[in-house]
């Protein structure tokens, strides 16, 4: 029997495979297919203080080995989440993690205060890396002072596990990671999407209503892997890896690069069962390599 459980500074995960925010709704859509207790955790769709309609259509475009999106944090606001969604999902037998967004530090703090008291929310992911909103979002995640500021203020009002989700759209992601570690972040998750763009050559028009959007999928995996390796070498807090993970081998590469857990995002669009297949595949890999505990894999890159 192999042990797949990991602990991210107080966030206990039965296995290290979570579903990424914005790729698994509030878990209910996955529950239409299978028992969600099989995944290690669900990063819930990003929420903001007030209702957001998101960006106009079209919001997505396929790319070779990936896709661009420009959803723009469509959600009904934190109060709707607490009153209507949370009661429906709170008894899922997996770790539920709220993804918190804001256009100002005050908004981040207010949303955090509102969700801090929810018993069945195991942790929060502070999203300072959404590339698809005009205000806030990625703006906080691309400079050390603003990343430090929002992390410090949110840390003051959130006693449970605080994960900060980092943007790859920076010169040196390790600097941002160290900055939020210094302000009390329990963990960092990376990477969010890469800012990209698509053009229809025939019509000469952009493929997305917002012109630019976030690139995800296997196309970004080598860069995400490199960034996870760099960050895990630079900080002491646990790192959660994501970016183009499609199968168990991809996930294991992230563990070897130093990730303590992984998130599966765009792959779910192809097949909602992929997170479960990855859990099974990790178990098989560990048996094949005579490993008893997933932690033996973390940072196990041999050079």
């Amino acid at each position: 029997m192999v042990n797949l459980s990991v602990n991210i500074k107080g966030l206990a995960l039965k296995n290290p495979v979570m579903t990424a925010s914005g790729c698994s709704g509030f878990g209910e859509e996955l529950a239409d297919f299978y028992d969600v207790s099989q995944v290690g955790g669900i990063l819930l769709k990003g929420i903001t203080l007030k209702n957001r309609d998101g960006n106009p259509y079209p919001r997505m475009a396929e790319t070779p080995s990936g896709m661009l999106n420009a959803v723009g944090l469509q959600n009904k606001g934190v109060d709707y989440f607490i009153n209507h969604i949370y009661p429906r999902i709170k008894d899922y037998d997996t770790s539920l993690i709220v993804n918190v967004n804001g256009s100002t530090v005050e908004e981040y703090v207010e949303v955090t205060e509102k969700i801090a008291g929810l018993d069945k929310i195991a942790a929060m992911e502070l999203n300072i890396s959404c590339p698809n909103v005009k205000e806030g979002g990625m703006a906080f995640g691309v400079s050390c002072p603003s990343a430090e500021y929002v992390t410090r203020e949110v840390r003051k009002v959130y006693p449970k596990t605080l994960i900060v989700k980092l943007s790859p759209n920076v010169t040196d992601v390790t600097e941002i990671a160290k900055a939020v570690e210094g302000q009390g972040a329990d963990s960092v998750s990376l990477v969010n999407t890469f800012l990209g763009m698509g053009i229809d050559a025939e019509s000469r028009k952009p493929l997305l209503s917002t012109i630019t959007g976030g690139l995800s999928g296997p196309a970004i995996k080598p860069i995400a892997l490199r960034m996870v390796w760099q960050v895990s070498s630079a900080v002491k807090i646990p790192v959660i890896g994501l970016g183009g993970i499609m199968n168990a081998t991809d996930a294991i590469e992230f563990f070897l690069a130093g990730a303590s857990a992984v998130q599966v995002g765009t792959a779910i669009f192809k097949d909602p069962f992929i997170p479960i297949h990855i859990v099974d595949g990790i178990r098989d890999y560990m048996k094949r390599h005579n490993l008893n505990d997933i932690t033996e894999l973390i940072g196990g890159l041999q050079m």
Partner: protein
Amino acid sequence: MKKVVDQFTVVSTIPYNSTNYCITLKSHSPLEKIEAGQFTNVEIPGNKEVFLRRPFSVFEVDYKSNTLSILVKILGKGSKTLTEIRPGEILSLIYPLGKGFTLPKNNEKIMAVGGGSGVAPVLHLARNSGLPVDNVQVILGARSSGDHIPVDHYNQWANCHYTTDDGSKGIHGVVTNHPLFNNLNEFDRIYACGPLPMMKAVAAQAKKANVTCEVSLENLMACGFGVCLCCIEPTTKGNLCVCTEGPVFNINDLKW
């Protein structure tokens, strides 16, 4: 509602003309119940440039043989790759997805209008409406007679009428030029699926005649089951996902 990801074997790929194909697929497990207007998201194998699945309305369903069929119109590299698939190959399908058409009540009279590959859900509905043949009028529109798919056997479930842009089959013109549109008040419900201008024209006529009308949309989508929030349609209830709140919408809910 239960949704599944299942493996299907390709039974046949029949070309109707140079751009329209009917692909019949046999499930490895007993078929889930599929309503008219629901769709399936099909994985496209063997083309590295095609990353995401492609959604198709379910055309015909046979629960005895565990088969379903889809109509594929070649629009890009995904649909092109799909039409090149051979019998015996395996495809992964996610289904049944979305909300189908509201079925008519007993003795109601309906008009179902289809254009292009939009004829698939419309014919699915006509076949399963539960109404006598004479209560079901189907209008199929196409550019030219060669673009119409062979649907003579549907005359056992519906009265089929045709329009063509060039006048080579049926009424010369677009679907709304068909004389049946002169007396829309005879109908209790109108259903439409096809190119956006066609559906908007049908919806405008239905609205004028105050007849209940549902249309099936096909916005670009990534997942097909409500997690990516990419296929949104602005509605009176806000931005809704076409894949879960649709693809069928009552026109009164749309901001057309």
